[in-house]
C-alpha cells in the first residue's frame, strides 16, 4: 500500500492553475522533501492531501483511502503563522488544544488525551516548554511545539510545511535531525517542504520537486539535475554541485537561495544578483 498516491491531480486556486496532471506515489516510512519556488504549490499540495483544498481533477489517496478532511492518520504543521505565536499561552495548552479539538463540549482533557500530549511534547524534546509562554520562546522552540501539535493523535503521515523558515542553520539542522529520528522510530511517512535542498541533503529519502505546475519525484541526484528542472520550469536551469552543496541556477541566479531570501526578508528583486556568487 502507498502512503500517498496522486493520480493525474490538478489543483487550481482562485482561477490560477497550481498543479496540473501531477502523478506520484510515496511509500510508507519515506522521508520526502518537497522543494520548489514560492507559489509552486507546496502548501496547496499539502492542503489537498488534507482534504482542505479541492482538486479540480484526478484523485489523491492517503493509505489507500480517498482524501477527507479530519483524517486522523495525518498530522500537519502549517507554516508558523498561528495567531497566538506572540501570545501568553503555555506550551502545554497550545499542544493540548489539538487533542480531539474537533469535538464539541468543554476542553477537559482525560487521562488518554493528557498522555497523548505528554508523548508528543516528549518526542520533540519540549517537555520543559510545557509551562512557558509561547511569546517567550525562540523560533526553534516554537517550531518544536508546532511539530508536537502535528504528532498529537498518533498520525502515520506527517505534513510539515516549511518548518525551517526563519531558523538559523544550527536550529535548522536540529529540526531536520529531530524529524528524521521521530520518523524512523515511529515509522512515519514525512513530507517536509523547504525552500532550499542543502540542509536536507543528509536526511532525505527522495525529493518531490514542484515547478511550473508540474512535479518530479526521485532521489536527489535524479531530480536535482539540469535536464529535469529545465523540463519542469520550461527554462534553462543549471545545477552546480560544489563542496557537497547544490546550487540551482537560472540565467546566473541562484533560484533556491533567491526564493529563500525573498520570502524571509522581503528583499526586492534588485538584491538578487549578488546571491548567485554566495559560496558555501
Amino acid at each position, binding site marked *: 500500500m502507498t502512503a500517498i498516491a496522486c493520480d493525474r491531480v490538478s489543483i487550481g486556486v482562485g482561477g490560477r492553475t497550481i498543479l496540473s496532471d501531477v502523478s506520484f506515489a510515496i511509500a510508507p516510512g519515506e522521508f520526502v522533501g518537497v522543494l520548489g519556488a514560492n507559489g509552486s504549490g507546496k502548501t496547496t499540495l499539502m492542503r489537498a492531501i488534507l482534504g482542505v483544498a479541492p482538486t479540480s481533477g484526478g484523485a489523491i489517496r492517503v493509505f489507500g483511502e480517498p482524501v477527507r478532511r479530519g483524517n486522523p492518520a495525518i498530522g500537519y504543521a502549517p507554516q508558523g503563522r498561528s495567531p497566538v505565536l506572540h501570545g*501568553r499561552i*503555555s506550551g502545554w495548552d497550545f499542544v493540548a488544544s*489539538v487533542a480531539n*479539538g474537533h469535538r464539541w*463540549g468543554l476542553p477537559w482533557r482525560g487521562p488518554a488525551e493528557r498522555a497523548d500530549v505528554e508523548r508528543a511534547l516528549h518526542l520533540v524534546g519540549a517537555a520543559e516548554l510545557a509551562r512557558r509562554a509561547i511569546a517567550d520562546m525562540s523560533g526553534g522552540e516554537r517550531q518544536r511545539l508546532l511539530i508536537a501539535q502535528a504528532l498529537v493523535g498518533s498520525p502515520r503521515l506527517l505534513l510539515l510545511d516549511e518548518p525551517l523558515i526563519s531558523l538559523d542553520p544550527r536550529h535548522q539542522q536540529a529540526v531536520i535531525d529531530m524529524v528524521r529520528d521521530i520518523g524512523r522510530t515511529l515509522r512515519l511517512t514525512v513530507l517536509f517542504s523547504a525552500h532550499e535542498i542543502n540542509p536536507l541533503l543528509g536526511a532525505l529519502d527522495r525529493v518531490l520537486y514542484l515547478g511550473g505546475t508540474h512535479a518530479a519525484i526521485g532521489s536527489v541526484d535524479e531530480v536535482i539535475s539540469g535536464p529535469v528542472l529545465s523540463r519542469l520550469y520550461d527554462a534553462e536551469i543549471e545545477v552546480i554541485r560544489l563542496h557537497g552543496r547544490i546550487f540551482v541556477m537560472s540565467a546566473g541566479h541562484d533560484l533556491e537561495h533567491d526564493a529563500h531570501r525573498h520570502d524571509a526578508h522581503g528583499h526586492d528583486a534588485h538584491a538578487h544578483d549578488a546571491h548567485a556568487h554566495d559560496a558555501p
Partner: protein
Amino acid sequence: MFDYDFMVNAFAAGGIVALVAGAVGFFLVLRGQTFAGHALSHVGFAGATGAVLIGLPPLAGLVGFTLLAGIGIGLIGDRISSRDVVIGMVLSLSLGFGLLFLHFYTSYASQATAVLFGNVLAVGRPTLWTLGALGALCLGGLAAISRPLIFASLQPELAEAKGVSLKVVAVLFLAIVAIAVAESAQIVGVLLVFTLMVGPSAAAQRLTTRLSVGVALSVLLALVDAWGGLTLAFYTDWPTSFWITALSGLVYFATALMATSPIRPARP
C-alpha cells in the same frame, strides 16, 4: 447597603453580567476580536433606541440587533482584508441610526444616558430574570463550543484540517459575544462595554499562561470590577459606570506595568 432592594438587584445583575463578560471576553481577547466586540455594542445602541421608539424594552432591541450583527460579522469571516473597515462602517452607521431614533423619541435625554452609560441601579426583578436566562444561554453555548473554539483560535489551519468548521465556530462564538455585549450594555452602557468584556480578560492573560486559570481569573476580575464599582458608587454617590471603568482600568494598567517590569523572566 443591602437594605435597599435596588442595591440587591444591582449586585445580582452585576454578578451575572461579570460572569458572562469575564468568560466570553477571555476568548474575545484570545482571538483578537475585541474590535468586533466594540462594534457590536454600538450596533446595540441603534437596537436599544429603536426598541424604545416603538415601545419595546431596550434590552430586547439590544439583543436582537447585536445578535444579527454578530452573526453577520461571523459570516464575513476574517479572510476579507477590509473586514475592519466594514465593521467600522456598520458601527458608525448604527450610531447614526441610534441618533435618528432618539431624535424621534421626544424625552430622550435620560434614556440616551442610560443606554450609553448604563443604569444598573434601575434594574428590576423582571430584567434580572431576563439577564439570568440570557447569561445561562451564553455560558451554556460557550461551554458547548469551547473545545473547537480553543483549537480554532490557537491553530486555525490545523483545526480546519482536523475537521473543525472555522465558519460555524466563528458565527456561533460571535452570536454568544453579541448576547454578552447586550448584557454588559445593560450594566455599563454601550459605550463602556469594553471595560467589562476586555479589561479583565486582557489583565488575566497578562497574569497567567494557562487557559483554564485565565478564564477563572478573568471572571474573578470582572466580578471585582462590577461589585467593587457598585460599592464605591453607593458610598460616594458617583456614577457606578465610572467606578467600574476606573477599577477595570486600574487592574489592567497595573498588570501591564507588572508585565513590563524587569522582574519578569527575560526571553532566553
